[in-house]
C-alpha cells in the first residue's frame, strides 16, 4: 500500500510549494513519505481532496454486516475484558466535583467490587481542572497505571483563540494529564481552511510536551456529527494524522450524532492506510453513544477484521464512555455465574 499511495500521490510529492498562502512557520514534521502533502495550503487541499471518495451506502452496509458477527462464549469473554481495558471512563459535566471524580477513579481501578479479576479501565477522562484530583485519586487506590486523559482546547466547541487553547492544554499537562483530547476547529475545516486546522493540531501537539521530557498523548476529536459527510471524516482523519495526532477520535459526546459503526469503520480504514503509507501506527477512539456490551463488541469486531491484532490493545483503541462499563460488567457476571444480575449488582457513579 505504501507504494500504491506513493503512486497515487506522486504528482503532489513533486509539486513545488509555490502558493502565496504557504505558511511562514517551519515546515511541518509530517511523516517523510507524505511530507510534501503538507508543504502548502494548496498542496494540503489537493492531497485531502485526492483521497478516494467514500460511498455512504456501501460504508454503512459493510459496518452493518460486521455488526452481524455472532460473538459467543470464549470469544465473548475475551472481548468483554478487552473492552473494559479499553475504556476511557468519562465524566464531562458542568456539575463535576472532586467527589464525583474520585468515585469514578475508584471504579476505574476496581470496576467490579465483587470480582477483582476484572481488568482496570485504560483511563479516566475529565476536564482540565479535575486532572490533579483524578491523578491523586488513582494513585491512592492502586491505579498508578491508569491514565488520566483531559479534554482541552475549549472543549467541546473549540471556539477560542489558539492562545487560549494552548494555555488550556499546557494547564492540563502541567496538572499531570497523560493524554490530551483536543477538538479541531470545525468551522475552519468546513470553510476549507485545512492549513489552519493542521497548524492548530501541530501547535497543540507541541503544547503537550512535558516539562520533564516526554509528552502527553494527543487525541484529536473531529466531531463527526458536525463534519457531516464521510468524505469530510476521511479528510479530517488524514489531516490529523499528518499533523501528528497519536489517536483520532470520533466525537465529543456532546452533539446529536457521535460515534457510529460506519464513521468509526471509516477512521479504522484511515489508520490502516496511513500505516501502510508511512509506517506510523495511529490509534482510534470512538466516543459517545456506545452504551451496551453488545455495541462495544461490534466495534471490536470491526477493529479485528479491518486492522487485526496490532490494534487490539488499549494503546491503540479506546472507547470514550461512561455507562458502557456497567453493561460490560453485567455481561461479564452473566458469563461467569451463568445468570443475569441487575443494575444493583454493579456500582452507580
Amino acid at each position: 500500500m505504501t507504494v500504491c499511495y506513493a503512486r497515487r500521490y506522486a504528482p503532489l510529492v513533486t509539486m513545488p510549494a509555490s502558493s502565496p498562502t504557504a505558511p511562514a512557520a517551519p515546515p511541518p514534521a509530517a511523516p517523510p513519505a507524505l511530507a510534501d502533502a503538507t508543504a502548502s495550503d494548496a498542496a494540503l487541499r489537493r492531497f485531502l481532496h485526492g483521497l478516494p471518495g467514500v460511498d455512504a451506502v456501501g460504508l454503512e452496509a459493510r459496518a452493518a454486516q460486521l455488526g452481524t458477527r455472532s460473538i459467543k462464549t470464549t470469544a465473548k469473554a475475551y472481548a468483554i475484558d478487552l473492552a473494559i481495558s479499553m475504556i476511557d471512563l468519562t465524566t464531562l459535566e458542568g456539575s463535576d466535583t472532586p467527589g464525583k471524580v474520585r468515585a469514578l477513579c475508584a471504579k476505574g481501578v476496581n470496576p467490579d467490587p465483587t470480582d477483582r479479576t476484572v481488568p482496570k479501565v485504560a483511563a479516566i477522562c475529565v476536564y482540565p481542572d479535575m486532572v490533579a484530583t483524578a491523578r491523586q485519586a488513582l494513585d491512592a487506590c492502586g491505579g498508578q497505571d491508569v491514565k488520566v486523559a483531559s479534554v482541552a482546547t475549549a472543549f467541546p466547541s473549540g471556539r477560542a483563540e489558539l492562545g487560549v487553547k494552548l494555555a488550556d492544554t499546557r494547564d492540563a499537562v502541567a496538572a499531570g494529564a497523560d493524554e490530551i483530547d483536543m477538538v479541531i476547529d470545525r468551522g475552519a475545516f468546513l470553510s476549507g481552511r485545512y492549513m489552519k486546522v493542521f497548524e492548530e493540531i501541530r501547535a497543540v501537539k507541541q503544547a503537550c510536551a512535558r516539562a520533564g521530557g516526554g509528552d502527553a498523548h494527543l487525541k484529536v476529536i473531529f466531531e463527526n456529527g458536525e463534519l457531516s459527510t464521510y468524505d469530510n471524516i476521511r479528510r479530517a482523519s488524514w489531516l490529523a494524522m499528518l499533523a501528528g495526532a497519536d489517536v483520532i477520535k470520533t466525537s465529543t459526546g456532546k452533539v446529536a450524532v457521535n460515534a457510529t459503526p460506519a464513521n468509526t469503520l471509516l477512521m479504522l480504514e484511515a489508520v490502516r492506510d496511513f500505516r501502510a503509507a508511512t509506517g506510523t501506527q495511529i490509534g482510534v477512539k470512538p466516543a459517545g453513544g456506545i452504551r451496551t456490551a453488545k455495541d462495544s463488541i461490534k466495534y471490536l469486531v470491526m477493529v479485528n477484521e479491518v486492522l487485526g491484532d496490532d490494534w487490539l490493545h488499549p494503546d491503540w483503541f479506546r472507547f470514550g464512555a461512561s455507562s458502557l462499563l456497567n453493561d460490560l460488567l453485567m455481561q461479564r457476571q452473566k458469563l461467569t455465574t451463568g445468570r443475569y444480575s441487575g443494575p444493583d449488582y454493579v456500582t452507580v457513579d
Partner: protein
Amino acid sequence: MSPMFEYAPAPESRAVVDIAPSYGLFVDGEFREAAGGKSFKTVSPSTEEVLAEVAHAGAEDVDAAVAAARRAFASWSALPGAERAKYLFRIARIIQERSRELAVLETLDNGKPIRETRDADLPLVAAHFFYHAGWADKLAHAGYGPDPRPLGVAAQVIPWNFPLMMLAWKVAPALACGNTVVLKPAETTPLSALFFADVCRQAGLPKGVVNILTGDGSTGAALVAHEGVDKVAFTGSTAVGKQIARTVAGSAKKLTLELGGKGANIVFDDAPVDQAVEGIVNGIYFNQGQVCCAGSRLLVQESVQDELLEALRRRLSTLRVGDPLDKNTDVGAINSAEQLARITELADSGEAEGAERWSPACELPERGFWFAPTVFTNVTQAHRIAREEIFGPVLSVLSFRTPDEAVAKANNSQYGLSAGVWTEKGSRILAMAGRLRAGVVWANTFNKFDPTSPFGGYRESGFGREGGRHGLEAYLDV
C-alpha cells in the same frame, strides 16, 4: 500464530427445522408418491449427509400435476385480484414467521452460509410475495390494457443456487396475475420448495393452484414439453435454456429464460476504493459465486490496479470459509460434486492458459464440496476464464485504460446479464449504464436485488424480465 480475537463457533440450531425422512410430490393440494415409485436422495453439500429421500416425478406425475393446475385455473383466475392478494399476503407473512426454519433448511440443502439465507434469501422471498400481492388487484393499471388476462398453467423450472428465492420470483407473479403453477425445483435442492408446499397449505391456498414436482432434468423436460402448459419459465444454464427454447418452439407457449452470465464489474480510478472492494467481494463470493449475475470479471483501470488488488487480497484474507450453519461464516460449500468438478476444471484451465492464480490461506473442511475463494490476475479476453461462466468463487481480473475500452471489453461476451460501475462521477455512471449491454447495471454496488426492479438478460443470458411492473408481462396474455 492464531489470531488474538478468535471467534468461538456460533452455529445456528438445526432443531428449528424438522426434516422428514422422505417426501412425496405436491399435487392438487396433497403430498403423494411418484406414480413410478421412484425416488432420489438429497444431501447436505457441506457434509455429504443424506437429508431426505424425495419422490422422482415421471411423465404420469407431470400429467397429474398439469391437470390439477388446469382444474384450479378456472376458479383461481376468476377470483377478484383483491382475493388472490389475500392469499399472497398470507403466504408472505407465513414465510416471515417461518423464516428461521426456512433459512436453516436452505442452508442445509444448498450449502450456502446461514448469514446469507437469513439476511438475503428469506427477506427477499417474503418481499417478492408482498410486492406481487400488491399488484394482484391493480393489474388494470400496469400498462397492459384495462383487463389483462392470465395465461393459464405455468410450468416453472428453477435452479439450485437460490432455491426458495427463485421459487418466489416465479410463483409470486404467476399467482398474482391469476395463473396456476407446476414448479420443478432443482434436483440437488428440492427441500425448500416442499416446505413451501406446506406454507401454501397453511395459507389455505386452493388445491391445485401450486403443484411441486421434484425430480431431475427428465422431469423438467417432460414438464416444459407438456401440451397442457401455457407458459414456460426457466432459470438455469444457457445450454438447458436453449434446449427448452427448441422444445417450446412452434407451440403457443409463452417463454421466458433467465440464463447464465459473465458480469463485468468495472472499477474506475476515482472509485470509492474500500466500498469497491466490498462490492467485488459481494459480486463474486456471495453465494460462493454461484450467482448467474455474479461479477465474475473485474475490469479495473490500470492506474489503480495494484492498489485495488492489494486491498482486495487483504480483504479476502479475512473471509471466513467453513460450516455454513455457523453465523460467522462468509463462504460456504459448493452445491454439488458435479459443480465443484466444473469449477475446478475451469480454474485449472486458467492456470494452464497462463493466468496467475491466488487464494487466501484457508483450511477447507475434509468432507463436503469446497472451493477456496480464488482470484486470477493477468487474465485477457482470450482466456476461457474470461469468457465461460464458472459459477463458482473465481474472479478473473482484467484491466482497461479508457472508458471506451471498458465498455468494449465488458460487452465482449456472449452473455449480457449484469454489470457494475464504480466511480464517484455521476455523469460517467449514466454514460456507462447506457452503453453496457446488460440487463442490470449496478452503480457503486453489486448483487442488490429488489422485487420492484426488473431483472433479466440480453443475448445468451436469456429474455423476459422478473420483478417490477415489467415482470408481470411474462404472466399476462399480452
